[in-house]
């Protein structure tokens, strides 16, 4: 299927330890999928492996982004192919301003040597910042340096809006956020939602899904998806807890 992110039988190890075990999932454009699961089950590994992090060794399997294999590509090539990962813990980049950072990311998407329309860029950047209620002064600040948890997440959403990816993976974007920050993230995702993007929301808690209503919910356990359902699955999980999944699997 060329209009989807199609992950098939993905096996991923960190060092000697296998984390993802024949993981498969297809996210069509236009849908929002939530992946839930207990800690240590491989949710973040999935995000990092898809983004091409060198510490995560893909031993077999594939991930097709609109038909294009991204496994084995460099992280920057994967990003330019259209995959965006919102980090659980975004890095601080001292000395690199947000404006220059996003600009470099956009320039990397242009044909080599093509002129960059700085005026249009700033107009767009300010528009998005206003929508996210970010002070315009942030453009001159170093990326994430000294930001609060909520500001970092807002900065992730800003980048996502500016880079217009085909698929986005939100890696526990809600962790450590208060309810206001949670709303900002959710509003950002909801604003991005549409027929041109597929979104995967990885979360440990159901509460984010009060604000982002997913089309599908998947339960992940021991490196693969063990349950899939609609948004009601999240409520069921919330009521029964993850032990329910573990018991069911053991049976």
């Amino acid at each position, binding site marked *: 299927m060329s209009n989807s992110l199609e992950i098939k039988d993905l096996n991923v190890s960190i060092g000697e330890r296998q984390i993802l075990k024949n993981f498969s999932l297809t996210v069509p454009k236009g849908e929002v999928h939530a992946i839930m699961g207990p800690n240590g089950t491989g949710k973040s590994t999935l995000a990092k492996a898809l983004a091409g992090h060198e510490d995560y060794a893909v031993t077999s399997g594939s991930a097709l982004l609109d038909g294009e294999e991204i496994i084995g590509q460099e992280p920057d090539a994967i990003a330019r192919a259209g995959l965006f990962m919102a980090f659980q813990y975004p890095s*601080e980049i001292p000395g690199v301003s947000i404006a220059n950072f996003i600009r470099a990311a956009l320039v990397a998407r242009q044909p080599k040597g093509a002129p960059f329309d700085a005026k249009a860029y700033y107009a767009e950047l300010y528009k998005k910042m206003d929508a996210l209620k970010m002070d315009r002064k942030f453009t001159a600040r170093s990326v994430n340096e000294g930001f609060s948890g909520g500001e970092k997440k807002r900065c992730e959403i800003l980048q996502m809006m500016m880079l217009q990816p085909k698929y986005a993976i939100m890696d526990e974007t809600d962790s450590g956020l208060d309810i206001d920050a949670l709303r900002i993230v959710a509003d950002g995702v909801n604003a991005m939602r549409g027929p041109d993007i597929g979104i995967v929301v990885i979360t440990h808690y159901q509460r984010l899904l009060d604000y982002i209503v997913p089309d599908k919910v998947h339960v992940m356990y021991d490196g693969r998806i063990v349950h899939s359902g609609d948004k009601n699955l999240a409520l069921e999980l919330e009521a029964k807890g993850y032990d329910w999944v573990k018991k069911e699997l053991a049976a």
Partner: protein
Amino acid sequence: MPTEILSPDTFAAQQNASPLAALKKAGWEQFQQLPVPQRTNERWRFSNLNHVKLEGFSLPPAPAKEIQQELLQRSALIEKVSGKIVFADGHLLGEVSLAPELHAQGVILETLSAAAEKHPALLEQYLLKSGTDLGGEKFLALHQAYLKTGYFLHVPKGVEISAPIAVYNWLAADGAAVFPHALVVAEENARVNVVDFYLSRDESAKGFAAAAADIHAAPGAGVFRKVVQNWNEQTQSYQIDNTHAENNSTVTTVSVNLGAKRARFENAIRLNGSGSNVRLYGLTVADQDQEFDQRTLQIHNAPDSYSDLLYKNALLDRARTIFSGLIRVAPGAQKTDAYQTNRNLLLSPDAEANSLPGLEIEANDVKCSHGATTGQLDTSELFYMQARGIPKETAYELLVFGFFEEIIEKVDNEELAGVLRTFVQEKFKRRSAKNLLG
């Protein structure tokens, strides 16, 4: 005519009836008596003394007319200035310029030789009074002996210089020795802004520079000095700076070190007045076989004084850096706030960064800290940038320039910051980013 700087005949030949003659003679005599630095000298610890060579340098004649024209034209790195002086090979090129309104307010900007004639009392008060405790006394003595092409900037009470005075010091002839001097005096509540450039006409001429600076900030004065050292990599560079900060004065210095084969920089500040506030920033980019040797001293002689030092070094190839910094708090200098930070970014497995931070505290109610870090680029930062589509080489450059930016922005002058970014980029352009990544 002998021209070797080590020859007594050379020294004698350049002596004249200047009021500086006695000072110069004393310098020459000290130079003769002082030993060359020895390996056992703690103040030269980690320095590669094989690189210290005084032989083979001379006092060249003034450059040919067309070279003078060329250098005058090139002495325009920043346009918005309130005064300018250009020296080449120890000779003044063209004329000293100073904004008429500053001249009208009594600001003095002269060559040292001219100032010695016109303002002997001021020179007697401020010129070369401090010596150095940091090990370079022989070089300072040689500087004193050949004192000529420095400048004297004197800002009277309450007068403010906002756009910088730009001073260009060029090395041009092969084997030239130069002895630039900066004498900057800001009287009470005056404000002064000055930038010194150390530059070479080409990449191949061998050169020797023994520079020195005397900076005086009177009560309430503000001094902002920037030094851009970008000699070619055939040059030996010595810089010995002394700063005196009186009551409630503010001194900020930014030193950018890019050039020379071997550069030693001794920077001593004396906080003599309570409420004085000194900030010292340094940025060094070392590549190939360059060695940068930095020795600093923050002396707190008065209570309620504040000093903060941040020296950042980036090392490539087989380059070496040495940072040796000492905070000294005199008895009675209570409520001192003094900080010292040295950050080294190792961009090559063969580079070597040495760090010797130190504290000597003789007062009991102070806040002092020192710290040194040496590390490589953060791989999680690189991944983060790549995950946004930025190619690894570009991400690497952005991170390295980000490391510099913290210091570059301290010059607080967009034109000058632009010049510095260009200099640093030129230095990086010599290699492909792929090589950098190893």
